[in-house]
């Protein structure tokens, strides 16, 4: 195997477009529902964020809605107004936000990107599109039922695993269907090189059902005792990021960066080394969420060691991506896909190195229990993963619908409002979180003073959230135009500016 094998893609444009055409229904199903959940998740995020500096914000339905519902009695039960008012409480919208963005947006987009990449990289038309689309429908039904359950008071109260069993079961079935399909695709691939993106996708599709089943069965069905259940909870919570979102995000980065700039990945060996070291270390990280918690020291220590070891796969991958990009950074000026994906890949390096530092006990004891952690998770799931998904969708959708994105300006607005929004949000949460953590250690500062001192950061966070919202609405609108066949039918791809012009 050569150290710089070219992307194992097809030279024949006709074959490529036949593969893209075969992906059309399932991939668009996943993308459209993902973007819908992104909008819903953004609304929950704004509600939760504003409630943290203004607790009286939208505590009940608008009077008009209540009046209409009351008129519909007895067709609508009398207690429905109370139930709906309850669903607007912080304790409900906060988990609804996490679950709609993690399972509704991020996972659904990840599956969409993953199946398209599998078809392209296996170099065969997507097999059983009806089966894959059915998995998408079941998946969305699971997210809908689970989120409804949280809003109406059936949350399990386990972070990242709030959905009750009937919803998790649907998600598991849908996920397993995609995994089985991926193996089938892999077995029927055209002979030749297996690209690094395929390892990441296959691994993620293998790990996640195991992870998800273990956590749900032991926490919700076997009801393992307290502290053992807590470590399983965070082993799951961290691996959802590390062994599901990260591999799919990296698979996309490994595909789109070389693809857009038109040169192979810098080093096959760095790719392989980065992959296997990630597989080995990431899965052990979960315990760093419980530093100082009621657990034996060895569990925590093992996780701290593995978290620090994560520097290896992260730096290796960063070097590999950087060396691939070297000499081609000017392409960022005109390719939307590349700009989103490179922004994401750089954020991956930053988020991961920050994560390793946060596992160190002395820093962790300050940042734990504060907004600093929230900033870190947004750096990971948003600045890294979500931005890469945006870039991937900008590349894939025109190939599925047969027309180009309507407007470079809309993409520009999307990029800049999200880029500024997330950078500012992470900064605000990081500084606010550090202050919160440092004040918390000083018993002479009363809890009331801490709440008052960090209030301004919570206001800033809502403002940055508005920036993200603008980006999401513009993106969803642009996507809707594409789905409705209102894309640009003629001309080359939609670029920020034409590469020929200075």
């Amino acid at each position: 195997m050569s150290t710089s094998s070219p992307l194992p893609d097809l030279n024949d444009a006709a074959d490529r477009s036949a593969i893209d055409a075969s992906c059309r229904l399932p991939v668009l199903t996943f993308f459209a529902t993902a973007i819908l959940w992104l909008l819903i998740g953004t609304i929950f995020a704004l509600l939760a964020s504003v409630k943290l500096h203004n607790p009286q914000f939208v505590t009940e339905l608008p009077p008009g809605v209540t009046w209409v519902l009351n008129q519909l009695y007895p067709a609508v039960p009398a207690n429905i107004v109370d139930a709906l008012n309850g669903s607007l409480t912080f304790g409900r919208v906060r988990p609804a936000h996490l679950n709609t963005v993690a399972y509704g947006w991020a996972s659904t987009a990840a599956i969409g990107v993953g199946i398209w990449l599998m078809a392209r990289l296996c170099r065969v038309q997507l097999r059983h599109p009806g089966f894959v689309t059915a998995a998408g429908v079941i998946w969305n039904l699971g997210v809908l039922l689970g989120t409804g359950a949280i809003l109406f008071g059936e949350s399990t109260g386990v972070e990242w695993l709030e959905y009750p069993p009937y919803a998790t079961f649907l998600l598991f079935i849908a996920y397993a269907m995609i995994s089985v399909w991926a193996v089938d695709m892999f077995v029927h691939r055209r002979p030749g090189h297996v690209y690094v993106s395929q390892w990441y996708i296959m691994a993620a599709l293998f790990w996640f059902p195991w992870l998800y089943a273990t956590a749900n069965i032991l926490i919700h069905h076997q009801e393992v005792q307290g502290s053992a259940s807590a470590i399983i909870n965070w082993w799951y919570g961290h691996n959802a990021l590390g062994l599901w979102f990260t591999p799919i995000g990296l698979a996309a980065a490994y595909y789109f960066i070389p693809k857009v700039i038109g040169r192979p990945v810098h080093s096959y060996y760095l790719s392989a080394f980065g992959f296997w070291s990630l597989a080995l270390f990431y899965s052990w990280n979960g315990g760093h969420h419980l530093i100082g918690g009621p657990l034996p020291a060895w569990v925590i220590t093992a996780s701290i060691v593995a978290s620090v070891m994560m520097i290896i796969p992260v730096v290796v991958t960063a070097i590999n991506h950087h060396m691939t990009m070297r000499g081609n950074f000017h392409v960022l000026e005109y390719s939307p896909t590349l700009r989103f994906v490179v922004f994401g890949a750089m954020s991956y390096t930053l988020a991961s190195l920050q994560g390793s530092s946060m596992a160190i006990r002395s820093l962790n004891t300050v940042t734990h229990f504060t907004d600093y952690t929230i900033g870190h998770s947004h750096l990971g799931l948003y600045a890294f993963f979500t931005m890469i998904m945006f870039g991937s969708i900008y590349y894939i959708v025109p190939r599925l619908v047969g027309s180009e994105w309507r407007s470079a300006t809309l993409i520009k607005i999307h990029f800049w409002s999200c880029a500024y929004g997330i950078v500012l949000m992470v900064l605000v949460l990081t500084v606010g979180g550090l202050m919160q953590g440092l004040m918390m250690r000083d018993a002479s500062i009363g809890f009331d003073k801490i709440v008052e001192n960090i209030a301004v950061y919570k206001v800033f966070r809502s403002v940055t959230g508005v920036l993200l919202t603008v980006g999401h609405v513009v993106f969803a609108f642009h996507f809707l135009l594409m789905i409705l066949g209102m894309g640009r039918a003629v001309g080359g791809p939609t670029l920020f500016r034409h590469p020929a012009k200075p």
Partner: protein
Amino acid sequence: MNRLPTLFIGFFATFLTAWLGLVIIPYFQFGQLEPQVDPDTGDQFPPAPTGLALRGAQVYRASGCIYCHSQQIRPADLQDGHNRGWGARRTVPRDYLYEKPPQLGTMRTGPDLTNVGVRLNDAAWHHEHLYAPQSKAAWSIMAPYKYLYTVRKIEGQPSPKALKLQPPYAPAEGYEVVPTPDAEALVAYLLSLNRNYALPEAPVE
């Protein structure tokens, strides 16, 4: 690495190590703990939760309390909570043996609740606080949990359970605010939160 079996053996082996290390071994090491029994009195620590408090733990979970409140006290060297009166000692695995799942939490937007039943032991205070947190602390950013309460017209005698709220949180003239069964269960659970007893592995200093 072009062959499926080779890849899958690698996927399996790497993940298996963590699965054994962070799931299976912990389950056998501290997943089957027993309560500590006082040989003289026969009292058990931690005390087994009883009916109403057990139901209240479910309300606590479903209401999302965990997103702002932790229930764990870290070791003294981390300057964690001991000096704020949140707990007399660090918490250990045995403290959570009845909790399936525990509500350890990852955020302290609000104070830690490990021992809230000790420092705030008045049920009426909790009801008023849950209904209108700012009536108890003007600086509080806690969400009002109004859906746990019913505002109703007073018919005959006012209910003895009615909340004694001051304006501007009091209901309109002729109305009263009474807790739902969920609210009563939640408050019973909060009052039951006390982990200040001594355990051999975690003495109270």
